[in-house]
């Protein structure tokens, strides 16, 4: 069962990839003759995405059967599920608006999320008592759905920005936009490196003394740039180039710093290569492909995603979370970092809605807010787990 489950996940991943290519083929930068082939490829892309989604549902339920609990209980499972909810949200919104460009951006972002999930340990793990609750399942799945829908507002906002930000000369806006694309490339770079070194079986180990005086080991899956402070190499190859500063005391701080450095480097290399090949800003290179989009419509899609996603997010990430917390931790609110960041996300989108409604923040401003909103969601998803440990620290 577990084997079947992971096969289905691979199949879903490949199918999404193919779906993305179909969507890409539907874009045309020519003014004339848009309708026919664009529509056709868009349809094929959409159907492919739905097939991929069905496959991933297959993964989800077979894994559920194998583990006996809903597969949303560790970082791998949750992040994969989040990717799946993004695809689901995309399927709904494409159903309403039939905008092919949305597929070209939303699907790759979902792919990145799912691939990134694959970097976490994939073992089927048992549930600790605090996680044994139906409310937890309901909370986590609904929250992920809400975040998935909100992520579509990011995709639509990004298309809006790439399509409309003036690219004649370098401005603050073009720089920020390149920054966003660079961040996406960093995730891609990290995934490529991880997969490469994992398949080569690379591992380096350093031993060091933790802050409580206990002996700890840092295990690296990527070549070591930053070793823990005052550590000794137990098993290694390349490096280290330097030792992490001593104030980074967390058990895995040096490994995380190492991963961070590699991500930024590989993202930089990818970005540099693309710039060399294209000989212009990435956004400037994509812009002509988006000539046929209707910015007004994308603005509407991104707002609509927030309008649909905000209540779902509130219900899942705050209300169901409170019910679960009430059952498990005997209080509905405890100011745990993960909770607080869910509240921050909620407040942020509340501010977005008010800015839009009462202060007329449409178009570019609204799109930038959607980008920022996605950054906050990803921060809560990844950074709060990895950096700020809370009650929710699954791993």
């Amino acid at each position, binding site marked *: 069962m577990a084997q079947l489950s992971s096969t289905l996940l691979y199949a879903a991943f490949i199918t999404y990839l193919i779906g993305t290519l179909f969507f890409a083929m539907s874009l045309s930068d020519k003014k004339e003759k848009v309708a026919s082939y664009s529509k056709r490829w868009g349809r094929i892309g959409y159907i492919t995405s739905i097939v991929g989604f069905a496959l991933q549902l297959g993964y989800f339920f077979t894994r559920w059967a*194998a*583990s*006996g609990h809903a597969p949303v209980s560790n970082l791998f499972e949750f992040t994969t599920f989040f990717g799946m909810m993004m695809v689901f949200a995309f399927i709904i919104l494409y159903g309403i*608006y039939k905008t092919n460009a949305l597929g070209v951006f939303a699907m790759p972002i979902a792919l990145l999320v799912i691939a990134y999930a694959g970097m976490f*340990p994939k*073992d*089927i*793990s*048992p549930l*600790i*008592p*605090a996680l*044994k*609750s139906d409310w937890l399942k309901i909370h986590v799945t609904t929250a992920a759905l809400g975040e998935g829908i909100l992520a579509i507002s990011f995709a639509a906002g990004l298309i809006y920005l790439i399509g409309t930000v003036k690219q004649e000369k370098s401005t603050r806006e073009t720089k920020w936009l390149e920054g966003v694309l660079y961040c996406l490339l960093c995730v891609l770079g990290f995934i490529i490196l991880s997969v490469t070194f994992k398949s080569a079986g690379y591992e380096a180990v350093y031993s060091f003394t933790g802050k409580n005086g206990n002996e700890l080991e840092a295990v690296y899956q990527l070549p070591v740039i930053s070793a823990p402070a005052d550590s000794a190499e137990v098993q290694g190859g390349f490096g280290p180039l330097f030792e992490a500063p001593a*104030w980074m005391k967390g058990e895995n701080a040096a490994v995380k710093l190492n991963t961070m450095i590699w991500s930024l480097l590989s993202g930089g290399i990818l970005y540099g290569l693309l710039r060399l090949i294209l000989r212009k800003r990435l956004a400037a290179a994509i812009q002509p492909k988006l000539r046929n989009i*209707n*910015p*007004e*419509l994308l603005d*509407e899609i991104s*707002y*609509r995603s927030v*309008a*649909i996603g*905000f*209540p779902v997010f*509130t*219900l899942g990430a705050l*209300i169901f979370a*409170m019910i679960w917390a*009430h*059952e*498990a*931790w*005997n*209080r*509905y*609110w*405890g*100011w*745990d*970092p993960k909770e*607080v*960041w869910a*509240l*921050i996300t909620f*407040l*942020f989108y*509340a*501010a977005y809605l*008010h*800015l839009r*409604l*009462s*202060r*007329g923040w449409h178009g570019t401003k609204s799109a930038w807010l959607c980008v920022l909103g996605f950054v906050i969601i990803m921060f809560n998803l990844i950074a*709060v787990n990895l950096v*700020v440990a809370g009650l929710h620290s699954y791993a």
Partner: protein
Amino acid sequence: MEKTIICECGHHNPPGTLICQSCGKPFADAKENMEASMRYEGTARRSQTYNRTAVDKIWNFFSSVKVGIWIIVVILVAAAIGTIFPQEMYIPQNVDPASHYESEYGNLGKIYFLLGFHNLYGSWWFIVLLGMLALSIIVASIDRGVPLYKSLKRQKVIRHDQFLKHQRLFAQDVKGDLGTMKIALKEQNYKIREENGSLFAEKGRFSRWGPYVNHVGLVIFLAGAMLRFFPGMYVEEVLWLREGDTAAIPGTLSEDGQYYLKNEKFILEFYDKNDEQFKDALQNTSNPVPKNFQTNAVLYKSDSNGTIGAGEIKKVKEGKIQVNKPLKFDSFSLYQTDFKMDELNAMSFSLVEKESQKKVGAFEVDLINPKKKYDLGNGYSVNLGKYYPNYFLEDGEPKTKNNVPDNPAFVFEMISPESTKKEKAFVAIKNNIEMEGNRYKVEFAGIKTKNLTALTVRKDHTLPIVSLGGIIFMIGVVQGLYWNHRRIWIKEKEGGLWIAAHTNKNWFGIKKDLQKLSDKTGIVMPEDRTAAKTA
């Protein structure tokens, strides 16, 4: 000086009105910005009209959405700051926060502590911010909600030409038949009113109340959360209970009695490392993974007239308390929160004659309620002179940290038939101090341990209020965000029909409605002026 605005139709509008409340004629600059003016139907809002007294100024301040957004953003940033370092409630209980933040997080930690950020969410200024949020929501909602309600209620079918002309979706001199349009609009679930050859179609008006409903929910929620600070609304106590013990449950004394709880057994289970299902994950971790924390408990209640501790106690029910499965009774819940395995409970000793190594007797000291005197028979006995449950040395003096028998130490007085004086011995774990010339010694023989469970007793009368607020909030957001208010005005003019349409949001949706109307009746699609401008 504010004056009533008299429209050409003769209607007297209150000062501040943007669109005549009777005929719909837009005044002055309302035409230029019709979409914005339509938000509250061009009504006069208190905050836009008066600005003289202090009350006016405060009212206007809090009714401003700009201010509201700033309040939200400040709360957001404060909340984020609170996650930089752990809050006080998440640092170890037994350390001094002042030094903890500095030693763990250096100078930044020290500043964090000095600014009071270690207890940010309970700080007075954070509570004040929440209060300002609530106030702002209330004021802003009344300021807009009341005039909006009145205005939508008395909408007229026929609107002023200028009103139609300046709508975002508008078409002039359309050829078409009102009758077929009426049917087509009815099919799309529009409510239709007619007057003198003009037609007004409307749907989803209730969605306009969504923000007001959700704001009411929010305010109820915030009020409920604040009620917690009032005595009696909220009880939270921790009850530590050894296996086999019965104790009064703190906070549960009332006129009709007192609840007691017995801890029959505390159970801690771990996953089996060789578990088929989870083998891979379990063999990758060094620590065993817990599977279950459980207290088997019996609940008792004293009869109503019994004084505390006295009186008869009757069994109410038995139950398992697990994480995620509290035991509930009356308005209370008991949660499994903590435990302590194998706490020392009793120690047994032998009295030994040193020279012959002969045991002359044995006794057991209950570490929770020790007896003073232990008679060993044959004239031998031991007195417990001093008892330090959690012993440590301070300036050469034995002391105890607390009453928890984590590191017990004793001063025994040994009495034998032949001895004239009491022999004293100090006995502690791995640390016996013998007096010179003692004939007897106390030898450690064994221990008994017990498990403890910690249960949190909770009563929260704010829960119904908070839940109500949450439910109302959800209804409100869904109402306001999943539906929208769509209106179509059709007016008969000499050259043909004038058609105008407005929605508070989702222009894509209303355009689809108009497209359907156009497909059914053959009228031309009204033009979207905003889209035309940007394209």
